[in-house]
């Protein structure tokens, strides 16, 4: 096992951290008492500051509450439990730890790759964009947060990933689809497409110049729609959406 793989596995461990207490109010209160009288602001400003701090504390408590009620499981003294599912409030930025490459802007991604990077009109601008160059040829990932129709995929906090690269899924699709994977062939906008469900699947394909690649880095381990587009771009949609949603999103790329 490579060191990179081990590090990846560690980063993918969903840690259920004990809920962080809100200390802001207590800190401000202590500092207010300890601050030399001469340095204090006018009573009116102090009053306003106290109100601001209170509002912040209330907002924070509201933000923490869902996480508390989620699977966060504090096992008591000196213990951090690890759950297979992440708390409702994602602790990491969208897509972090999924091995998607470097976070970039859409413009940067477009400037860096030789194919046109498209965005699904059905969803609008992505929440985050990543440029993955680890395999020697670029893959652009658009990441979307969960939303109606795009449920949170497993423990990742991601609603949908849209990957675009130069390559073809055929004829290696059988390799991609292992024994536990169900494969359905369909068409998206006239292009051949495959809908994969079941076991987590790797990603076998042929880039335009090199030999076949197998990218076994698991990302969402959710359902996958692959589209071999006529323009040579291989489209990969990953998420917990249903097939109709996936094909609708894939067909809306502009």
């Amino acid at each position, binding site marked *: 096992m490579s060191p990179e793989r*081990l590090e990846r*596995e560690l980063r993918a461990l969903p840690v259920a951290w004990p809920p962080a207490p809100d*200390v802001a109010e207590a800190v401000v209160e202590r500092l207010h008492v300890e601050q030399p009288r001469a340095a204090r*602001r006018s009573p009116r400003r102090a009053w306003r500051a106290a109100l601001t701090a209170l509002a*912040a504390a209330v907002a924070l408590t509201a933000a923490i509450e869902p996480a508390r009620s989620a699977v966060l499981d504090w096992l008591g003294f*000196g213990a*951090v439990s*690890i759950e297979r599912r992440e708390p409702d409030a994602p602790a990491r930025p969208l897509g972090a730890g999924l091995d998607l490459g470097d976070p970039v802007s859409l413009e940067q991604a477009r400037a860096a790759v030789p194919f046109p990077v498209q965005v699904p009109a059905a969803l609008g601008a992505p929440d985050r964009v990543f440029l993955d160059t680890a395999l020697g040829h670029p893959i652009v990932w658009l990441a979307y947060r969960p939303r109606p129709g795009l449920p949170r995929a497993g423990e990742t906090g991601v609603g949908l990933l849209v990957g675009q690269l130069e390559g073809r899924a055929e004829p290696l699709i059988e390799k991609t689809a292992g024994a536990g994977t169900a494969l359905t062939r369909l068409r998206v906008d006239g292009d051949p497409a495959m809908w994969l469900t079941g*076991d987590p699947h790797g990603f076998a394909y042929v880039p335009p110049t090199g030999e076949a690649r197998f990218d076994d880095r698991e990302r969402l381990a959710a359902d996958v729609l692959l589209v071999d587009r006529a323009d040579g771009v291989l489209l990969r949609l990953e998420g*917990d959406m249903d097939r109709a949603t996936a094909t609708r999103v894939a067909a809306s790329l502009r």
Partner: protein
Amino acid sequence: MRRPDNEPELVERARARDLAAYGELVRIHQEIAFRTAVLICGDPHEAEEAVQEAFVKAYAALPRFKAGRPLRPWLLAIVANEARNRRRAAGRRTRLALQVAEQIPAGDQVHAPPEAEPEPAALATERRAALVAALERLPERDRTVIALRCLLDLSEAETAAALGVRRGTVKSRLSRALDRLREEVGPDVA
């Protein structure tokens, strides 16, 4: 959490003794501060006190903070120091008990076709359990650097600040710790 755009402004105001601005900075950084403290002192109650104390001390030290730099590594250094002191004072050798939950969320089953076997999910859980158990067997120093870097996702600079060492040391320590973890966890059976 990413550095908010208005952080330099908040720092400026806090340096001018604006407590509301400082409260805002505490709110932004307290979660990562608490997790760092938990990893170092191994106890959430101690960690909470360490974080509170650290933020009070950091306010007094703010005039010495170099404006324009990221605040987080600087804060984490103070927090980690406070957490270490408390751990030492308590004379406790608490270890973090990392555990993998047995339960597989129902959601995982939804997409498996009826004919598919449930092995992969079970394997993944087993693999995680093996990894966490191996992590538990590592010496404290190895475990902390791995936890800060890989579980808490601190940057190299932040980890260096929290451990009070140089970045190069973080790099070599992490690499050695991962080597030992790899030996400990054994061959990948998955």
